[in-house]
């Protein structure tokens, strides 16, 4: 899922300084699961923003609190119509995709991000999420035992460890496992470590977004 974290409250208070009525809009997708922008976080943020305005003085801030099923699909964005004319700005608690999508589809709406979108990750344990995928557009997990060196190696090395790791830990951060150690151990465990002898070719990073914004078109699905 996409992992996000709420921005510092004062940063959001500053964004909405000239708004009197805001729609605090959560998303019931990824950010609900990682407890960054679901219903509960919407209620907390709305209260914090009202307090922020009370601290600054001036007109009282009116808030509408709501969530959409997702903020990355047109049919759910259309649900925003029910609040038309009732707010001056939207504070979206969705990931950056949701903020962009509202900005795309509602040209006359001011939309601000309440969270920092951080990475594609998994729940390592309750309250802890770790990055697992870079969304690089050219998956090579079939060569590496399902473990990704693109995002889980600090140097994104493609042909084995850098030589700086010690006792299975990355030289960049001792709290991080050397993913190449893990790849080696995994393939050895599977009896397939000869696969590591293959040399990975120089990578074409255009698929990773280095060639500009990416798009997927599925002719079988378009209408």
């Amino acid at each position: 899922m996409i992992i996000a974290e709420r921005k510092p409250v004062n940063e959001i208070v500053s964004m909405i300084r000239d708004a009197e009525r805001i729609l605090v809009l959560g998303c019931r997708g990824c950010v609900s699961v990682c407890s960054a922008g679901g219903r509960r976080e919407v209620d907390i943020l709305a209260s914090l923003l009202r307090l922020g305005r009370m601290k600054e003085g001036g007109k009282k801030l009116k808030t509408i609190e709501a969530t959409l099923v997702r903020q990355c699909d047109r049919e759910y964005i259309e649900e925003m119509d029910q609040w038309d004319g009732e707010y001056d700005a939207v504070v979206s608690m969705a990931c950056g995709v949701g903020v962009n999508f509202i900005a795309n589809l509602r040209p006359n709406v001011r939309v601000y991000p309440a969270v920092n979108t951080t990475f594609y990750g998994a729940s390592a344990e309750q309250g802890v999420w770790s990055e697992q995928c870079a969304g690089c557009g050219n998956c090579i997990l079939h060569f590496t035992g399902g473990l990704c060196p693109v995002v889980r190696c600090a140097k994104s090395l493609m042909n084995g460890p850098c030589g700086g790791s010690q006792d299975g830990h990355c030289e960049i951060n001792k709290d991080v496992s050397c993913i190449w150690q893990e790849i080696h151990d995994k393939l050895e465990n599977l009896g397939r470590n000869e696969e590591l002898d293959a040399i990975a070719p120089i990578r074409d990073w255009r698929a990773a977004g280095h060639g500009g914004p990416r798009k997927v078109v599925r002719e079988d699905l378009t209408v």
Partner: protein
Amino acid sequence: MNFVPDIQVLCCHYTSQQILAESKEDLRGDGLPENVTINRVACGGKIRETAILSALESGADGVCVVACDPDTCHNVLGSKRAAKRVAAVRKSLAEMDVEADRVGMFQVERGFHPEFVRAAVEMNEKIMGFGPSPFKNGGKK
């Protein structure tokens, strides 16, 4: 200025069960300040961040959360959950340049004992030192 803070105590039913069996007069006699209001909930784990923030929005100068000793919590994890939520609210207050100590967490043994009253007294004294809530009067003290 004669500042009398509005202190709202949010407390666990089990932590406060016996102390709340006392009359208001008896509680005052035990030293509970008159400006302290006790709000009892079913469990410390029921105290959400929004309850604490709502108290501040309603004009509290300080909020004091009182729950069981974490190792003997009646509902096992309720007190620990309350402490986590208090910590989250304190972090948010700090982000707004507001004294985090305006929200306090106290974990005390269940049953009647002076620590409950001491928590309220400590909170009251702390808030007296801070002065009125910055959320009142546009932050002007």
